[in-house]
């Protein structure tokens, strides 16, 4: 459950960053860290399996570019946009339930 939720959050974080425009892997990692104020960060290249999985699933599109030297840029697809909206809504529901539960615990 924990691994699944964490994996899901990581995927949605990447999609959320790419919603602002295409980015390289390192830009995505930096952007996630900045936008979440350090609450989330990707270490040791853990971003690559996430990006490659999202690419295989059709949620992002990887494009090789660069002159003389290849560099990969990722961009969000329409499928990815829909996935982000659905995923964000689902997470919101889950967290609302969790927060209500925790609020109850504190009150007690």
């Amino acid at each position, binding site marked *: 459950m924990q691994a699944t939720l964490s994996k899901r959050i990581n995927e949605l974080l990447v999609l959320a960053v790419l919603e602002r425009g295409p980015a*390289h*892997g*390192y*830009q995505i*990692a*930096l952007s996630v860290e900045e936008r979440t104020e350090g609450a989330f960060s*990707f*270490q*040791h*290249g*853990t971003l*690559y*399996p996430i990006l*490659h*999985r999202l690419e*295989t699933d059709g949620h992002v599109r990887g494009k090789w570019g*660069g002159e003389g*030297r*290849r*560099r*990969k840029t990722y961009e969000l697809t329409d499928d990815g946009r829909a996935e982000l909206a659905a995923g964000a809504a689902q997470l919101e529901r889950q967290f609302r339930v969790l927060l209500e539960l925790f609020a109850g615990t504190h009150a007690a």
Partner: protein
Amino acid sequence: MRPEHPLADVERSLAVPPRRRLDLLEEVDADTEALQAELERRGYGPAQARRAALRQTVPGTETLAQLEAQHAPPLNRWARRTGWIDRAERLGIVVATGLAGAVAFTTILRSGPLGSAAVLAWLQVIVVALLAANWTRAAKHLWVAGDLRPDLRRQLWERQIGLVVLAVALGALGAAWEGYSAYEALAAEDFAVPAIGDAVRRIVSCAALGFGAAIFGLFGWLAITPRLISDETIERRISAFFTGSRLTPTSSTRR
């Protein structure tokens, strides 16, 4: 001694097809360089920025395992799912060896009594089976593991060629043996025509068996050659990548 490139370990341990390996190396390399530049802009010193960038981008063991699972060939994924991954090579070898051996066995039976060279003909069955086993091993690495490294490829090719040469030699030896034995028998029978026909048939059978085994070995390898060539081309690009990478190998990056 020249220090290793920071991604050399990744290249060595990542068991995926060369195309995928090259893509990942180029992606990580470009990201590391860009991240290093970004960190330098934020006030890090060059060495400190490089170390930090490498720590961020170079995939660790667990990540490499995930990447391997993601980029494995479809046959590999199926074998993992069904639990056949550990048995795939052995099963392939048993099936290919059994089939090849059965074909060679049937050929010998159909060609009739081989006379004094029969021992050599039966040795051919073993050679054919070994050729099939060697080929299966190469095919397993290419289509199940997805990764046949140059050293192993060379080793398997040398074994295949050695077996082909052995098959030809056994065929030639068998034919010579039959010829020699037949000559003595024919001389005793004043070279009667039916006896000559029988002797020629035996000689040709032995030679054909050796030739057939050699063709089987060579054509088997020929069938996987296109994939070997394309893999080798990419392996050369991987070598060029390590030579041309701007991510200079220094001992300070290996931590």
